[in-house]
């Protein structure tokens, strides 16, 4: 072990975990990264492209290198940052992106080929031959370059979502965030404090500087304890606020059970949508590294991370407690690391400070004006090459801390296209104007990074945010804290030979940036895409600013002139499981069931999805071995006896008001206002552009009341469009609309014996043809006083009705009709027979009303009334639509036994089968049990004038060509006598 004494880990308990098959020990409070370091493990992963051995770079969510596959089996989670994985007993992790073992990765051969794998290599190399891309190049590249792997198994865990509201959301629980939360909490404001860490404190936990002469962790604990007593404050640890969305809504993921071996009955993670009146962004800062040759060996890490491991986790960065450690810095922070390490008992081999006037100390050797220009150690750092005073020397060390200054974490502040601005004084980007409204950056993320400044700034930001929403607050007494000035120097990389890594995760070097410059990929956005810098799981948190600075140096421009990229959500990766909010499989979206669903299920119905609805498709009976047996039987029963079909799913809109008729005249293409009370009319609705979009019936129940029926698919759309028309187009009309689709169970009773059946259930109503003719409707009672609505309408072409009762009685009504109709041969039928019947009758349905067809095309052009205006009427007469001469026709095979296939395109015999000669297409097809052969409906050029002509239907997908005869679309009873009998 390489543990120092102290630290914020629970030494009273020891937990075991496995990494790459080996067992190790750690303590509660550890992360996987800290526990590995404490066990002397420096090599934690392989890089993306060159498979270079890599160790941990950081101690936080910015980690580019130490990515592992966490857990096993279905819970295996790739690309997990070891720095964020909270250690638990039995944790299992594996290194990833390797072929062979971590210490011997066969794909490390890529590193030897680095000279040819420079930036832009793929773009240039894999262009030819083009056909090789999909089958050879892409699979090969994906296999060679990549990160972790998925288990391929369904996620066994539960996820949840939720909504929170507060006056002030504090993002980050470090010095600034705690001060902000304390200020706001004491004011009585509703506060949510979220931090991605499992422990509040941020950098206060990583530094040795006291607060009020006591360890900072004491103040953190006291503050947290006080906040927890406040009912108006909610603390969300393990919660990453990953994005800012419109209207003050923040997206956050709470890792509820990620720190447990298995979640048991808990949810694994929760997606929170937080509506905050104001927010304080206290996200802190990420340390910069300094690229120099071979700066990526395991053991080289950020100096601030080294302090965090030493102070918070008591873990030595080297392979042993007394292994020598060196520091390379361009600012005072590197010295802070050296001091802390020495205090912990480490041996500091020297601090190489790029500043020629760096202060000397007796505690360790300072190489003022020195540079690190190279390193040795294949799987872990052994020594560094230092140039100092014109001399070059190798210094042995097991770890090197690098500090190039700090980058404020401006991500969330730039989510609404708020562009960060360059602060020349601190050589950093800080949040600019124009970011999310109501978000106030504070502390290190605003460039105020000393502990004292961060504490004060957090309190100030909270006060300022609360003042804006009328909540008074007082600044709390804040502890005395270090207040070292932030002095950051413009020293961005060490020039020289060898590869100096800028983006560790994407293996982008200073040379790659120089190449991008040479190839004129100079705008920042081009640089990113050309080199892949800043992509993948870390999104360039440790590389973006350094890359910009290198590009600025190459172009001779300033950093602000070079530009900056802005950041999009999410701040860190968010799993799709939690984004889905926990709904999976059949629960992924709502399902709607008809009132007779339970009855149909009991009958053994096979169901089909129609939008959100589940509808009975057919009702198999014993002995029927193919769906066609059932469907043919059901369709025949309707034409010979009587059938029953639940048609509740059709949309029903109740339209009332003094101007209801006038309103519907404007909605429907045909005239409705003249419809008499007690009658039904078929209607067409057009889009504004003149195309058909829905059809259905409209029944007039009273002078000032209609019921509009829509297709199942368009029920919501028609209602929405009608509401828009009512509220926005014609608010002067007196019309009231409300959907009643679910309120009424509606059953189609179709077939020559339908009247006889209905006469057995209505309470004395006269259903004779004279009293209740085709297209009549009335309100009546059935089955001893139950209110009902009866419509004499037909989709099948037979004598038919639809009867509606309150939905709760739909089930019993269906049962009653089945009982009462037993001697009439009553037969339930599903959507499949429904489709057969309507194709035989030539009724247009969804396949014909596909948004590309007109009223004229389905043979109903004259329904678009010229006596009044209606939505889409004028546009339907425009040249482009009026000139469309394709018409709905029926089709049947010339050779008996051949099939009509929906989707096939129609051509004249002998004509080339290409777009120029396309004459139409087949919309619907089925086997007609009444005709005994396949039939279809389709649109054909001048179809209505081509009866009996033989044409060709080509189905290139199936390689079929069939000769079809053009016939009337009404295969059954073209005169329409049956439905009027």
């Amino acid at each position, binding site marked *: 072990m390489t543990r120092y004494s102290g630290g914020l880990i629970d030494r009273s308990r020891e937990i075991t975990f496995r990494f790459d098959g080996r067992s190790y020990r750690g303590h509660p409070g550890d992360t996987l990264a800290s526990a590995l370091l404490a066990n002397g493990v420096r090599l934690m992963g392989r890089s993306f492209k060159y498979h270079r051995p890599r160790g941990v770079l950081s101690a936080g969510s910015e980690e580019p290198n130490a990515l592992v596959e966490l857990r096993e089996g279905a819970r295996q989670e790739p690309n997990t940052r070891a720095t964020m994985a909270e250690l638990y007993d039995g944790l299992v992790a594996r290194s990833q992106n390797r072929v062979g073992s971590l210490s011997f990765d066969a794909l490390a051969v890529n590193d030897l080929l680095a000279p040819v794998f420079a930036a832009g290599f793929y773009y240039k190399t894999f262009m030819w031959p083009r056909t090789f891309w999909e089958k050879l190049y892409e699979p090969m590249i994906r296999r060679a370059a990549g990160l972790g792997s998925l288990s391929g198994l369904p996620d066994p865990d539960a996820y949840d979502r939720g909504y929170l509201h507060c006056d002030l959301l504090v993002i980050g629980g470090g010095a600034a965030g705690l001060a902000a939360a304390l200020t706001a909490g004491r004011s009585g404001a509703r506060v949510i404090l979220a931090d991605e860490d499992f422990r509040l404190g941020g950098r206060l936990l990583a530094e040795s500087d006291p607060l009020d002469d006591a360890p900072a962790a004491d103040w953190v604990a006291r503050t947290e304890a006080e906040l927890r007593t406040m009912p108006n404050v909610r603390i969300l640890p393990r919660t990453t606020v990953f994005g800012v969305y419109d209207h003050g809504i923040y997206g956050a993921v709470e890792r509820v059970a990620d720190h447990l071996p298995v979640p048991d009955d808990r949810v694994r993670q929760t997606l929170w*949508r937080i509506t905050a009146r104001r927010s304080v962004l206290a996200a802190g800062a990420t340390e910069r590294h300094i690229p120099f040759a071979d700066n990526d060996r395991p053991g080289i890490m950020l100096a601030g991370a080294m302090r965090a491991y030493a102070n918070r986790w008591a873990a030595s960065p080297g392979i042993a407690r007394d292994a020598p450690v060196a520091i390379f810095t361009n600012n005072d922070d590197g010295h802070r690391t050296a001091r802390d390490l020495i205090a912990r008992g480490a041996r500091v081999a020297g601090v190489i400070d790029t500043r020629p006037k760096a202060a000397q100390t007796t505690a360790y050797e300072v190489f003022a004006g020195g540079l690190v220009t190279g390193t040795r150690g294949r799987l872990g750092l052994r020594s560094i090459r230092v140039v100092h005073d014109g001399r070059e020397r190798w210094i042995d060390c097991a770890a090197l801390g690098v500090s190039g200054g700090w980058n404020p974490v401006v991500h969330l502040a730039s989510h609404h296209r708020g562009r960060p601005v360059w602060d020349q004084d601190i050589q950093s980007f800080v949040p600019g104007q124009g970011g999310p409204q109501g978000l106030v950056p504070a502390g290190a993320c605003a460039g105020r990074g000393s502990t004292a400044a961060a504490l004060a700034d957090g309190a100030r930001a909270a006060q300022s945010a609360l003042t804006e929403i009328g909540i008074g607050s007082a600044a709390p007494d804040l502890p005395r804290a270090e207040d070292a000035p932030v002095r950051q120097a413009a020293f961005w990389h060490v020039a020289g030979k060898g590869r100096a890594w800028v983006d560790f995760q994407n293996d982008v070097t200073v040379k790659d940036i120089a190449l991008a410059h040479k190839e004129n990929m100079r705008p920042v956005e081009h640089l990113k895409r050309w080199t892949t810098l800043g992509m993948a799981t870390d999104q360039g948190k440790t590389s973006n600013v350094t890359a910009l600075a290198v590009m600025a140096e190459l172009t001779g421009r300033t950093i602000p002139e070079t530009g900056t990229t802005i950041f999009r959500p999410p701040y860190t990766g968010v799993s799709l499981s939690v984004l889905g909010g926990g709904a999976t499989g059949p629960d992924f979206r709502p399902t709607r069931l008809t009132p007779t669903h339970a009855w149909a299920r009991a009958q053994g119905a096979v169901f089909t999805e129609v939008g959100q609805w589940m509808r009975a498709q057919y009702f198999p009976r014993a002995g029927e071995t193919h769906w066609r047996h059932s469907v043919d039987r059901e369709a025949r029963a309707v034409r010979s006896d009587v059938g029953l079909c639940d048609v509740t799913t059709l949309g029903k809109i109740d339209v009332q008001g003094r101007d209801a008729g006038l309103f519907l005249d404007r909605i429907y293409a045909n005239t409705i206002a003249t419809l008499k009370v007690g009658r039904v009319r078929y209607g067409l609705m057009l889009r504004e552009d003149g195309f058909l979009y829905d059809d259905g019936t409209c029944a007039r129940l009273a002078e000032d009341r209609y019921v509009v029926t829509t297709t199942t698919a368009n029920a919501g759309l028609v209602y929405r469009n009608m509401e828009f028309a009512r509220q926005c187009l014609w608010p002067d009309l007196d019309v009231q609309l409300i959907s009643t689709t679910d309120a009424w169970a509606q059953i189609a009773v179709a077939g020559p014996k339908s009247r006889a059946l209905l006469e057995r259930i209505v309470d004395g109503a006269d259903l004779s043809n004279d009293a209740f003719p085709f297209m009549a409707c009335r309100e009546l009672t059935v089955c001893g006083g139950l209110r009902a609505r009866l419509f004499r309408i037909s989709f099948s072409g037979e004598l038919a009705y639809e009867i509606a009762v309150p939905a709760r009685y739909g089930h*019993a009504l269906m049962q009653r009709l089945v009982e009462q109709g037993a001697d009439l041969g009553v037969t339930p039928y599903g959507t499949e027979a429904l489709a057969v019947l309507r194709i035989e009758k030539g009724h247009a349905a969804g396949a014909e009303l596909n948004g590309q067809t007109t009223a004229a095309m389905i043979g109903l052009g004259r329904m678009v009334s010229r006596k009044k205006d209606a939505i889409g009427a004028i546009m339907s007469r425009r040249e482009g639509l009026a000139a469309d001469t394709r018409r709905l026709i029926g089709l049947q095979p010339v050779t008996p036994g051949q099939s009509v296939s929906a989707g096939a395109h129609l051509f004249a015999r002998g004509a080339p089968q290409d777009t120029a000669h396309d004459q139409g297409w087949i919309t619907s097809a089925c086997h007609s049990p009444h005709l005994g052969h396949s039939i279809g409906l389709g649109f054909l050029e001048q179809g209505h004038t081509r009866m009996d002509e033989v044409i060709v239907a080509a189905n290139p997908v199936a390689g079929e060509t069939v000769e079809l005869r053009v016939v009337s679309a009404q295969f059954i009873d073209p005169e329409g006598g049956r439905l009027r009998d």
Partner: protein
Amino acid sequence: MTDLASHTAFGAAQPRDRTIGALALTERPDIALASLTLRAGSRAPAPFGLDLPGPGGLAEGEGVAAFWSAPGQWMIEAPGRAESDFAAEVVRAVGDTGGTDVSVTEQTDGFVAFDIVSRHGPAPLDALLERLVNLDPALWGPGRATRTVLHHMSVFVLRRDASRVTIWGIRSAAGSLWHALDAALTRQNVGGYP
């Protein structure tokens, strides 16, 4: 009286209910519902003596309640009267109070109602609701009702008192709504929530 048996939105004879921890979830097929919409130029009536509430409001009367659902539109509820022609009763009730011009539509079976009642005060209910609907509890106390989205379903949520809410969802989606509510209750009870 019809001899047809009524079925719940789940196709069952009896309503569903489930008690998990402090919270009881109960299907309420007995509540009648009708929409009442003012016609142009009409003033708000006071059916059954109800003072029809403003936006976001819920007014409870004797055996009847009303909540605002759109400008000039309310839903009128009546527990225990679902099997009657409640819409006709609303029309009569409006006529009895001076006869203003309104449109009334039967809505009882357009929806399914679930009561959620806490035996231990508002805290468990608030914890549950924050998993279900995007409503700010500070602005959504007793006497408030709103239309919102719950698991991609349109619902009315009524806060009858601190420890009781009613959720009106689409009747045909009752199964999906029950699943969402039941799953949230179950998780709350196993301590998955704070």
